[in-house]
């Protein structure tokens, strides 16, 4: 990859200088990763140990990429020619004098080995990864030992939500704290309903880190927080609000106003007068307010328009008129104030309840985790902060780590959240000034798009200041991209240069001079008018058997999707793009793999996928967590479900229709017609009589699998089903091309899921099915993702069109990027949210409250809401920036016309404006069309070579488990062996896999033998010279054979063989032969002495064998 030196990076040397701390703000495509990796190399070159480097980036993927790149570079250094190695170094700002010196070069070449051998090695971390490391070395006193990491997904929330409800139900009966919570909960249910309450609690849980930071060590957090809010809202309750309006002596003005109204002859005024006097007569103040408000205020709650006019003067006389207007204004404001106050009072009450429940729920959560020794990422974050803020434990942790970080590198800093920043501060605090590390920080506030993960872009500035103050860090900016073609960069500048919300923005420039590029907008897609005005109601009802109902669906998105497929179809293989190859650029036709389709959210993706599939354009689904919803997986799950629940007729039928059995509707009809109860019985019945080959096959396999389902772990069962059911082969035949690869990948993913679920612990099939049900029900994060497409499936060479969310595309680039649904209005802020104000420099949030419906937010928090809104708008712009800057040469945007006119700006409208500003003749495009040229379409044949199915010899065999007799014999031998050597280490028989029971049965026999007079000569040491148990000999052939016992007495060697049977055994013949053979072998060894053999039977009888 080209280097900043070619880019004329503004003094990038300082950024790489190991001795200095640095803060780099670098625009998209300017090689942040290059810079980070290069700094690591420079550090190592300066003699820094790998374990002294703490590098943190945002995602595991990025972390691994950086590691990989560093190692690759070091390998390159170690193997390249001197000249190349020198170039490499000077590219990275090593002074030419140093580069030329041999020692440096040698050191550089040595790095590769030093790093790969290092213990602990070079590790690029994510924040999470790092926190978990710190947790692992936390002092024992932190009581984190033996905790396991749990993901705080929606499933856990559901479980907690249910148990929380059960607890409240109990507490509602009781007294004290619990009861208060229960009551607050019931009030919420009544006020805002079950769903919203649940939403509140969930969102509250998601923000618990801020909550904990906000309340700190506080004893009564809820009370305190409510206190803060009371202050902010400036009201205690409704009564107080009304007091303000109806303070003693409130009447006169109203009377005066009433008087004037009554004096007016206008009917409307008369009506108002009547209403007003009626209202003033009311004693109940809230009622009174309700009645008199309409006199002064409009429906919308604004002051009624009363303007000075001749008519008015005529009515009241000139100063009467003036007085009337003054009164109207004054009273109006007073009423408005009071209404506002009432609203705040309601919000306060709502917050009191919400915070009470919220806090109780968090305590419930804590208990839940404590019981299971679980921590989740939030805890890790939070606990680490606490540990580091305590001097002693911070010091301990730094000492306890095997690594000693002297250099800290932070990537993608714009995605950091305030809590993480606080942790970093605490970490840096913990160093003694002597050991102060260098800090390198790189990021781009323009690409901060993770507000929903609490990322705080403003931290970048804060951190930069902090570092330049305390670490005298140099600050550098880099606004040159090597990625985007000039045309793209021009549009970027036009987009953002005078976008107030996007300041400060420095104009960017492209280093890819001469690289053709183009930005193009497709006209917005509208409903076609014909469909719009509903066709006249048909005189006759639709015949459902003939014509399908026509869905009143989004025609517009349909059109957008079709246009997309059409456009792309026209460009593949024709439009020519430029590709870097090493240091050259070559021109080649556009491939599927060159295209990146971006969406804001996943919700609409299906439509685009269908269009692509219909056009036969291979793509990788951007959908997530959809594995269990895909038909092929549902097929298999249906089968499994039936296997554990034979009553599941629908699932059986489903499985039968799936490619696994490929049964037809006729087959199903045949089963439906059977009299037997339950489809399983029916299937057995038809299989016994006449039925299709398909049904026969199904019946056979299913019987076998039902049996296996009970015994096998889920994974092994699935594997058997896939194999015996020829599952992959059949799906190849039964899934249309565009979806085939995905289907196969999904089937594979399911298999691996079965293997991996809960580490394969306690793998019963029913439990697996229940798990799958739960996983499928779970939202987002928990639901398993679709299988990854095997890289080598069919279309490999041309790759696949990728559909991604803008978030997912972070850090990626592509020759052609297409922003879909670009005219969507930014998401409106949700009701039932948490409002947190955590200024970047503050150690903890300053504000924490719950927000109800938009229209009921009240005035006192509006500055906070405005700040939120501003941040949200800024993020919209960031998203657009990220989207456009993914494109190397071509950027398209398409969208659908907005039904609601005059909406806030959209990505599309902004692009349109920008193109306008660039002022080409064509306001829908900028830049030159790329060269095109027909080329033969690459053949899409499956390139994957397939190994010939050469016959595999069957290898290995299942031993029949030994029968009781054989086991008895073996144990008898073992026991005799030990008794004759008088050693019996305890539990030896268990070691051999025998039970105490078995031993008990063997022992008497052994004793009988040991006691038998006839055997004394063999078993009593007094009677012989030498004896060996389990004696092994080899015969001429070199074959090893083992005899039970070999005894040497004065006149002979005795080869003894124990038999657990009696002497009357039918096999006596073969026994004799065997012993005889042993005798011969022994004879060849001890030529001198005679060798005799004997069989010893369980009944202590002896049969001599002569050789």
């Amino acid at each position, binding site marked *: 990859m080209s280097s900043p030196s070619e880019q004329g990076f503004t003094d990038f040397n300082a950024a790489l200088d190991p001795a200095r701390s640095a803060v780099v703000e670098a625009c998209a495509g300017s090689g942040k990763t290059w810079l980070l990796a290069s700094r690591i190399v420079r550090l190592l070159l300066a003699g820094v140990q790998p374990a002294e480097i703490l590098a943190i980036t945002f995602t595991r993927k990025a972390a691994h*990429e950086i590691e990989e790149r560093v190692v690759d570079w070091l390998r390159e250094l*170690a*193997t390249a020619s001197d000249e190349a190695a020198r170039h490499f170094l000077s590219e990275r700002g090593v002074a030419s004098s140093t580069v030329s010196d041999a020692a440096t070069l*040698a050191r550089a*070449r040595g790095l590769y080995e030093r790093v*790969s051998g290092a*213990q602990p090695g070079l590790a690029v971390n994510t924040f999470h990864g790092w926190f978990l490391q710190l947790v692992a*070395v936390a002092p*024992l*006193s932190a009581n984190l030992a*033996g905790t396991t990491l749990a993901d705080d997904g929606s499933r856990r929330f559901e479980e907690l939500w*249910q148990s929380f*409800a059960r607890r409240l*139900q109990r507490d*509602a009966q009781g007294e004290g704290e619990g009861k208060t919570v229960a009551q607050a909960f019931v009030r919420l*249910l009544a006020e805002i309903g079950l769903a919203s309450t649940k939403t509140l609690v969930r969102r509250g849980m998601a923000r618990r880190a801020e909550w904990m930071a906000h309340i700190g060590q506080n004893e009564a957090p809820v009370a305190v927080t409510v206190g803060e809010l009371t202050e902010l809202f400036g009201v205690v309750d409704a009564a107080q609000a009304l007091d303000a309006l109806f303070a003693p002596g409130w009447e006169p003005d109203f009377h005066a106003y009433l008087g004037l109204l009554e004096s007016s002859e206008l009917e409307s005024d008369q009506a108002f007068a009547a209403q007003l006097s009626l209202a003033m007569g009311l004693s109940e103040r809230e009622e009174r307010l309700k009645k008199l408000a309409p006199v002064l205020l409009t429906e919308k709650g604004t002051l009624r328009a009363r303007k000075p006019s001749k008519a008015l003067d005529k009515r009241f006389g000139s100063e009467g008129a003036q007085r009337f207007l003054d009164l109207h204004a004054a009273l109006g404001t007073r009423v408005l104030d009071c209404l506002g106050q009432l609203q705040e009072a309601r919000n306060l009450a709502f917050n009191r309840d919400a915070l009470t429940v919220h806090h109780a729920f968090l305590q419930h959560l804590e208990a839940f985790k404590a*019981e299971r020794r679980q921590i989740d990422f939030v805890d890790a974050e939070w606990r680490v902060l606490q540990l580091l803020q305590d001097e*002693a434990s911070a010091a*301990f942790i730094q*000492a*306890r780590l095997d690594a000693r970080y002297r250099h800290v590198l932070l990537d993608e800093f714009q995605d950091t959240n305030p809590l993480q920043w606080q942790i970093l501060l605490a970490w840096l605090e913990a160093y003694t000034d002597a050991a102060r590390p260098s800090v390198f920080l790189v990021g781009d506030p323009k690409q901060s798009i993770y507000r929903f993960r609490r990322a705080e872009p403003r931290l970048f500035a804060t951190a930069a200041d902090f570092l330049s103050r305390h670490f005298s860090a140099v600050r550098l900016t880099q606004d040159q991209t090597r990625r985007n073609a000039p045309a793209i960069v021009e549009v970027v500048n036009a987009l953002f240069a005078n976008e107030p919300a996007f300041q400060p923005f420095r104009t960017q420039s492209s280093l890819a001079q001469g690289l053709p590029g183009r930005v193009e907008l497709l006209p917005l897609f509208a409903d076609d008018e014909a469909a719009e005005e509903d066709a006249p109601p048909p005189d006759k009802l639709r015949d*459902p058997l003939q014509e*399908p109902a026509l*869905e009143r*669906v989004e025609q517009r998105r349909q059109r957008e999707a079709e246009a997309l497929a059409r456009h792309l179809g026209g460009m593949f293989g024709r439009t020519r793009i430029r590709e870097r190859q090493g240091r050259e650029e070559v021109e080649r036709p556009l491939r599927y793999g060159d295209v990146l389709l971006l969406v804001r959210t996943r919700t609409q993706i299906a439509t685009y996928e269908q269009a692509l599939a219909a056009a036969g354009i291979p793509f990788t689904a951007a959908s997530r967590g959809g594995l269990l919803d895909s*038909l092929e997986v549902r097929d298999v799950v*249906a089968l499994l479900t039936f296997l*554990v*629940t034979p009553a599941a*007729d629908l699932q059986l*039928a*489903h499985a039968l*229709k799936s490619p696994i059995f*490929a049964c037809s*509707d006729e087959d*199903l009809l045949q089963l439906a017609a059977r009299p037997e109860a339950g489809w399983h019985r029916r299937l057995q019945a038809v299989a016994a009589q006449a039925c299709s*080959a398909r049904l026969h096959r199904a019946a056979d396999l299913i019987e076998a699998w039902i049996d296996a389902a*009970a015994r096998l*772990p889920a*994974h092994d069962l699935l*594997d058997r089903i896939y*194999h015996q059911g020829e599952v992959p*082969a*059949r799906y190849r035949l*039964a*899934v*249309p091309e565009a979806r085939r690869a995905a289907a196969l990948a999904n089937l594979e993913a399911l298999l691996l899921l079965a*293997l991996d679920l809960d580490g394969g612990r*306690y793998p*019963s099939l029913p439990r697996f099915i229940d798990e799958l049900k739960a996983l499928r029900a779970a939202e987002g994060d928990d639901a398993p993702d679709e299988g990854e497409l095997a*890289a080598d499936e069919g279309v490999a060479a041309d790759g696949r069109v990728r559909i991604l969310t803008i978030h997912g595309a972070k850090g990626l680039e592509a020759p052609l990027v297409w922003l879909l649904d670009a005219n969507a209005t930014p998401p409106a802020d949700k009701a039932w949210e948490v409002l947190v104000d955590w200024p970047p420099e503050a150690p903890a949030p300053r504000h924490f409250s719950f927000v109800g419906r938009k229209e009921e937010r009240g005035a006192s928090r509006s500055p906070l809401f405005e700040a939120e809104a501003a941040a949200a708008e800024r993020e919209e712009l960031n998203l657009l920036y990220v989207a456009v800057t993914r494109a190397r040469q071509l950027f398209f945007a398409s969208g659908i016309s907005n039904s609601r006119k005059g909406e806030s700006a959209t990505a599309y409208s902004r692009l349109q404006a920008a193109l306008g500003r660039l002022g080409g003749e064509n306001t829908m495009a900028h830049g030159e069309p790329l060269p095109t040229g027909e080329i033969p379409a690459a053949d899409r044949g499956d390139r994957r*070579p397939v*190994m010939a199915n050469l016959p*595999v010899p069957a*290898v*290995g*065999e*299942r031993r029949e488990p030994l029968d009781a007799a054989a086991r008895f014999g073996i144990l008898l031998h073992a026991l005799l062996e030990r008794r004759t050597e*008088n050693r019996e280490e305890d539990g030896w028989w268990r070691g051999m896999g025998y039970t105490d029971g078995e031993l008990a049965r063997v022992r008497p026999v052994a004793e009988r033998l040991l006691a038998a007079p006839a055997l004394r000569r063999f078993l009593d040491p007094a009677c012989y010279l030498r004896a060996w148990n389990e004696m092994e000999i080899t015969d*001429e052939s070199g074959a090893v054979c083992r005899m039970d016992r070999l005894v040497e007495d004065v006149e002979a060697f005795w080869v003894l063989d124990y038999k657990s049977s009696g002497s009357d055994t039918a096999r006596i013949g073969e026994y004799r032969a065997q012993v005889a053979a042993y005798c011969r072998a022994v004879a060849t060894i001890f030529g001198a002495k005679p060798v005799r053999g004997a069989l010893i039977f369980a009944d202590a009888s002896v049969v001599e064998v002569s050789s």
Partner: protein
Amino acid sequence: MAVAAHALTPDGGCLDAAAALLLAGAAADLPDLSRHLVLVSSLPLAAELRTALASAAGRPLLLPQFNTLRRWALAANLPDLPTPMPESERLVLLHSALAARGWFDEGALWGIAGELASLSDELSAAAVRLPDNEDELTRQLEQAYALRASEPLNFEARVVHEMWRALAAAGRPDAPSVYRLRLAQLAEQASRPLFVLLDGPAEERLTPAELAFIESYGRTQPVLVCAPQPRTGADSPLAAVLAAAWPEQPATDASAALMTRATQLAAVLPESPLAGRLQLVPVSGREAEAEAVAAQVFAWLGEGIRRIALVAEDRLTARRVRALLERAGVLAADETGWKLSTTRAAATLDALLETVAGSAYHLDLLDLFKSPHLFADLPSPARAGAVLALEQAIRRAGVKSGVLAFRRALAEQGAYIDAVSLSTASLMLDRLEVAQRILGGKPAPLAKWIARLQRGLDALGATGMLQADAAGDEILELLTQRQGELAESTASFGFAAWRDWFNRELEGGAFRDRGISSSVVMLPRHDVRLRRFEAAIVIGADAEQLAPAAGGTFFNQAVRRDLGLPTREDAERALRRDLELLLSTVPRVLVTWQHRQAGEARQLAPEFDLLSTLHALAWGDDLVRTPLPMAREAAAAADSLPALPVQARPSAPLAQVPARVSVSGLASLVACPYQFFARHVLRLNELDEVAEELEKSDYGQLVHRSLERFHAAHPSLAGLDDAAALAALSATVESVFAEAEADNWLALGWRLRWQARLPAYLAWQREREEAGWRWQAAEVKVARSLPLPDGATVELYGRIDRIDCAGPAGFGLLDYKTRKLTDLRRQMADDIQLPAYALLHGEAAEAAYVALDDEKVGTVACADDLADAGAAQGERLQAAFAALRNGAAMPAHGVDSVCRWCEASGLCRRDHVQSV
């Protein structure tokens, strides 16, 4: 006498060389080597050395005694030595000691106890003695950590030290110490010549105690220790390459640069000794890896290579490999084994404990009852029938947990269940209750808990089947053994703590399927050492998995080094030693790793990465190869091949066209004929599910019921003032919701939601009465049969929520909807229900939906020409059925909004039907 050490050239001939040495050393005794003792590092190796010896001798021999040092030492008869404290007893001891001090949460204790136990083993094994007083240790830690004493540090010191003392105080030595004592004594008694075959340098492979043993054994008896020469210093070309790749001391000066070493190698060795011996194969993803491995095994087998080692660095992938091999009839002998917890038998036991813990939550209970191990004494068909019946009863009744509730459910459903199943099912529940009672007992010592578990299993008739199951038997044996060891221990534990303990046992214990004998062996890395394999595959050789073992959780490397405990450097050296032996003794080695996993890059283990780089430098080949492709899965059987799905459009034989259809059935027919086919021709429906929580649909029903009851009691509000009416209705609502709330309190939310609407509803009801309408009946069943051209009829039937009457003005049909008025309006265009009701009722003047989910309650009335609308629906129904009876097809053409919730989508295959 003395110890003679002899280095073997590390290559395939290693064992023969060893055998030769053995023979030479024992020449005097030939052919009777029976007095010789041969100790090797593993039993399989012993077997191989034995054969090597036999063939080397070329004549009959009385073979020496073969064993491993450890087995031999532990088996030896040394009556006057103490027996070590069993692991299990020691854990309990530590657990109680920790608990007594109240330092940690109950839940953490087993884990910490386990860590402390292994730490103390490490200490004894390394013959390390901690300083006698705690402050000493603290000082030592300060030193090693380079950290001033502080609360955390002191605490770590205290924990370790106190526990260490607690163990010492127990008065029984631990296994390592006993082992040391035995070795010492055996060395004393040395009476036979000793031959030791090690698989690495003695100082690396043997503990201090073992080294000492050999040393002193040598004083009285001849000892010959031979071991393969380490790569450095070995004179084989291969060793030279490995030495160059993995220098024992990291290279420092330029002359020793990798590149230089490479060129030097190439200079002396024009041919790479690794060429053809080692392949590095990157794969993307687990399945790809498993396939690459299996494919290679098949290829080798095809070439007649039989003795193949599968080194399972990645257990999960290894498991996939095993499955793929078995498919092709290749069974691998397993020397590693799986955690007991991953066996089906363990699942049964856990299901039992879970059922007890969760007071018989329905899913756990069914999981348990469906286990193949239970109720062996009941005839299996009866068992299956009973479980089936029980499950259906539970689903129908929607009961979540509790044996009592299940009994009730059974009773309710009794009518549908055959006598045998019914009695069997309740018998099973009886026996479960027994088990629950046994296992629900008070805190008790572990031995007692084990006894309880055993009795519980007996009660469920599971013992027999578990014993018959290899893994199950292993587990039961394990329990009996622990029971024996812990017979004396009195510390008592609650259910949770006991269950933790049990889970840890199942996690710790390995199950080895000894039933398979095969020349293809799956084994841990270090067991390949020196054995004669023709080929080996290292599965999962990425930097994360093929890594030196990490030390325990106590202390960091610096401290461990300082204490004299093995550090990660030692582990690293051992790792390289293993690989060195593997590469030099096995002629074909394949190394696989997932270089991409879920889109993330993964590095090859540094050992192989270095080797590859060196090799590339020296011979221009980085040894990286592409995976062998797996033979495509067997082609599908011809007679039942699936084809690309097309739109389903079955037609039903006359006999199977239903004669009755409900209004919802008609709606289904209109929405999508295939859905109608599935539901009403095939009569396939979802099984009921047990819901955790009240759902929207249930809410609707409760609302209906409350209104039905209320109006049954108060046909008209005339007699009631607003307050009274509200009170009455509210009371009704509460009684209707009561059960749901008892079952799950969140139902309260729904009730409150409905109660908030009550005033609005009553207001609407009054208006209606003022308008002259009188409530007449609710939930009215109506039916009407319509003639068909072929003389048959089709009966349409349904149930009307509510019928009002306005005297002469006629009847009003009302249908309650817990939805918003606007939503309902939007759907009136193709509404079927109301006209259908009108048709069924016959004399309705009005038919309307009552929207119950807005501030105000309002109605949407169906088309003004109600009769015509009804008639039209009738005609459509008749026409459709006439067509169906004539074999018309029922196409699957629902619209997305219908399909999204359609349970038949698996039957019509919609998602796979090619969209064009």
